[in-house]
């Protein structure tokens, strides 16, 4: 689906591949010990401490690093790094397009990969978007949604941030089935990882006003992050504002 909007930090959580296995393992351990919580947020008891940890990580590492990156690297350089990282994630998107039977998305991503990897010099320039061919970004969580799997409970993953039980499982599968991640090694893998870290820092810096507001100015930043993530994720997967207004939010408009 589409990438960055006003809340990209909630959409594309994560700092990089290096922490995946550790954090997925930690999540499983934490899930096993979960306490009583509200019916619509059964994992709140584990999620809240993880949220506090992630917020601390943002305070001491991600936020300051993104400010340095923003100050040191000129905008065209940051854009090129982010484009390069996006291009590397295209084959993984194509695998999921295929699994979802999304032929249009598959065709557009194939075109993008071919154009951007050649004319766009290894993906540094996004020439396909300039030609009007926008990416169809997706993930295995969406594939599971297409296959009829429900979202499950909200879960905040260490380092990777907001997710659901379905999408957390999808994140693990995406690392396993990613054709790029399983092909690159040595120095190439380091470049790929570096570009992904750069892309996350760029997003954190670019949307700093909104992200800071949610994390540091909210009365309950866990609850706000959860609400924003779930609304955005459901919109991405379902994608119809009118349905939301009429069905799920009917009590929201009861006073009008």
């Amino acid at each position, binding site marked *: 689906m*589409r990438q960055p909007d006003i809340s990209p930090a909630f959409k594309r959580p994560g700092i990089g591949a290096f922490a995946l296995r550790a954090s997925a393992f930690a999540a499983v351990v934490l899930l096993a010990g979960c306490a009583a919580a509200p019916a619509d947020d059964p994992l709140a008891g584990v999620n809240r401490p993880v949220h506090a940890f992630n917020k601390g990580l943002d305070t001491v590492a991600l936020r300051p690093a993104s400010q340095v990156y923003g100050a040191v690297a000129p905008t065209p350089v940051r854009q090129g790094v982010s484009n390069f990282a996006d291009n590397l994630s295209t084959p993984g998107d194509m695998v999921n397009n295929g699994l979802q039977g999304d032929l249009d998305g598959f065709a557009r991503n194939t075109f993008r990969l071919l154009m951007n990897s050649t004319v766009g010099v290894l993906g540094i320039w996004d020439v396909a978007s300039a030609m009007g061919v926008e990416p169809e970004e997706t993930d295995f969580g969406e594939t599971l949604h297409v296959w009829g799997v429900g979202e499950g409970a909200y879960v905040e993953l260490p380092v990777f941030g907001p997710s659901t039980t379905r999408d957390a499982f999808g994140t693990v599968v995406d690392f396993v089935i990613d054709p790029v991640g399983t092909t690159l090694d040595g120095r190439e893998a380091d470049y790929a990882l570096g570009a992904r870290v750069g892309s996350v820092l760029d997003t954190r810096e670019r949307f700093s006003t*909104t992200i800071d507001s949610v994390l540091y100015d909210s*009365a*309950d930043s866990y609850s706000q992050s959860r609400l924003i993530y779930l609304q955005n994720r459901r919109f991405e997967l379902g994608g119809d504002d*009118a349905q939301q207004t009429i069905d799920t939010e009917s009590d929201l408009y009861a006073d009008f």
Partner: protein
Amino acid sequence: MPIFDALSPTRRAVLAGAAASVLAGPALALTDREARALIDGLVGEINTVINSGKSEAGMIRDFENIFNRYGDVPAIARTVLGQPFNAISSAEQAAYTTAFRGYISRKYGKRFREFIGGRIEVNDARAAGRFFEVRTTAFLRGEQPFDLTFVVMDSGGQDRFINMLIEGVNLLATERNEVRARLDRVGGSVPALTQALQSAG
């Protein structure tokens, strides 16, 4: 070319608006068109501000002004607080509404900073239950375009927007969550909440 950026959405809006009014049935045509006209005006003003080259503080002031003229802020304030609003005196209601107005304007005014140098285009207006939804697309520099939807209602004879959805993220629901969490934090006292909102956002 900021002049073209500012003008072209308006021109498109007029053309598309004319088309929409022809396509819509006679019963809804008037309000449908009005809902769209409101958002055309709103979007036109936002586009002018984000391409004005003014200082950030100046732009935030402009956004506050736009938010207050186009949005039904008292209705948003009331809904966000919910039941406790009905339990307080009219003086407390007025004080809370004023504090909420400042809070919401500062908060979302700052966020529109991320739109600087971009533009918004109006796509269509359609009936959604008792309301109208006007769908727009925001084009920010270096980003994929994203969806921005305004929910519009007739508020005492005047059309006003009562909600805004940014890629599905709903202002009313998000602020209800936030303001009620703030109310909990001050032990359920609306006057204490009002005081806190005066410096928040």
